[in-house]
């Protein structure tokens, strides 16, 4: 095996938070099958905190473990805290990743951030709609 750490193996074999959220507050997607990996994150937000996170991942062991780790790290965090999670900090939390996996499979934080951005832009447009409605 590409010398994965025990923690990577653990998250690969028993990934946390796999799945989908019906009517998520935010959804983020990164990657594409050409480059190798694809991750989709779904979030529920409550009081500016991540109340629920689910993901689906197409990709190698590292991609799956990264997704799982991100979901675990972000669970319950404020949106600002979650935005501070980086791909590097995920890799570090996993006890490191093989060098050639750092670039392509280590995109979980990006996917999560996309989901949060999605949530924010939805909220903004909701606000705008509301204010537009008010104004209109």
């Amino acid at each position, binding site marked *: *095996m*590409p010398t994965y750490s025990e923690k990577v*193996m653990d998250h*690969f*074999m028993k*990934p946390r938070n*796999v799945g*989908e959220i019906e009517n998520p507050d935010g959804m983020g*997607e990164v990657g594409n*099958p*050409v*480059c*190798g*990996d*694809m*991750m*989709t994150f779904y979030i529920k937000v409550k009081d500016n905190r991540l109340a629920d996170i689910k993901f*689906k*991942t*197409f*990709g*190698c*062991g*590292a*991609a*799956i473990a990264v997704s799982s780790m991100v979901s675990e790290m972000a669970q319950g965090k404020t949106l600002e805290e979650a935005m501070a999670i980086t791909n590097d900090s995920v890799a570090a939390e996993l006890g490191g990743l093989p060098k*050639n996996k750092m*670039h*392509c*499979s280590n995109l979980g934080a990006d996917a999560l951030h996309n989901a949060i951005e999605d949530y924010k832009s939805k909220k903004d447009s909701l606000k705008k709609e509301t204010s537009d409605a008010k104004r209109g």
Partner: protein
Amino acid sequence: MAATNKVYLDNGATTRVLPEVLEAMLPYFGEVYGNPSSLHDWGEEAKDAMEESRGKVAELLNANAEEIVFTSTGTESNNLAVKGIASAYKDKGKHIVISAIEHFSVMHSARTLSKEGFTVTTVPVDKDGLVDPDAIAGAIQKDTVLVSIMHANGEIGTIQPLKEIAAVTKKAGVLLHTDAVASAGNIPTDVKDLGVDALSLASNQFYGPKGVAALWVRKGVRFLPLFDGGIQEGGRRAGTDNVPGIVGMGKAAEIAKKDMSLNGERLIPLRDRLINGLTAKIERTILTGHPTRRLPGHASFCVEFIEGEAMLMMLNMHGVAASSGSACTSKALKASHVLLALGIDHALAQGSLVFTIGLENTIEDIDHVLEVFPAVVDRLRQMSPLYDKYLKARQGVK
């Protein structure tokens, strides 16, 4: 992490050394340890053993012993053949022809030649991985000096119509090299019957040791050496000869020749059981390579919506060894050029999985895979956003 049920189905990566082969090698480490180039009994005994081995490898190919050059790997043999022959004939012409599914050791040797002023024509393959002999005829130019088409492909198992291709190159007066690393010792590789001019083979692909391989080049065909140095192997491959390795390769060749028919008799039924079982049990899974013109123990697939490395890891947890041509399993993170050449798209190529059955495998091994693999696929598909989309699209259609 070790599973109790150990099923090795990666014989295409390397085989297990047979006990008889190891036994034949043993005296050549600490007893007959001379250098075959030395002028004394120690050297003479080592040389005799080496020459006996050369004869055995030649017999496997129905060739002459003096036409065999021992090397260290299939890769070295391919580099020596492609670069060595092309360079030796570069005054005659600077064009070579290869197929789109050659091993990197041929394909990148061709690329290196192209940096040295050669032009390379890459002939496509059909969806089963077959090269059309007519396409070779069409690719040959006035200045073509070498055609290199592999015998069998290690990733998809397809066996090329080499005899027909040889008829084309012969007619055109062009030399034909074949990379038989995946085939030699497993299916017949009679060079007279095939009609080729040079052939690469590797010991560890037929139950011999790693670290030793060979190149056969028909007498009269010239090639430049890769290594500068001494006069070992008749000046064709400098460096101290790997005597125990060579003895092991000879023994493995002898056994392979004797037991050649077993590959067909034993492996084809196992292979077909695996192919039929998996494609029946797992939806959206295709066989890659030719359905019948394939290596006897070779079963390769693309499983849609999931990725090869993840499958390998889960199979490994179930004690099963296999391989994959997915981007994530390659250090360069590129999907197998072989799968892409068949017209398979990048996403599907990610689901590549290759089982290569060897003579030690049993029907129980196959059934173990048939038992555990569907659950592996299920688990990974449950995590896959692509499978999700597929299911939703299917539901939408209904």
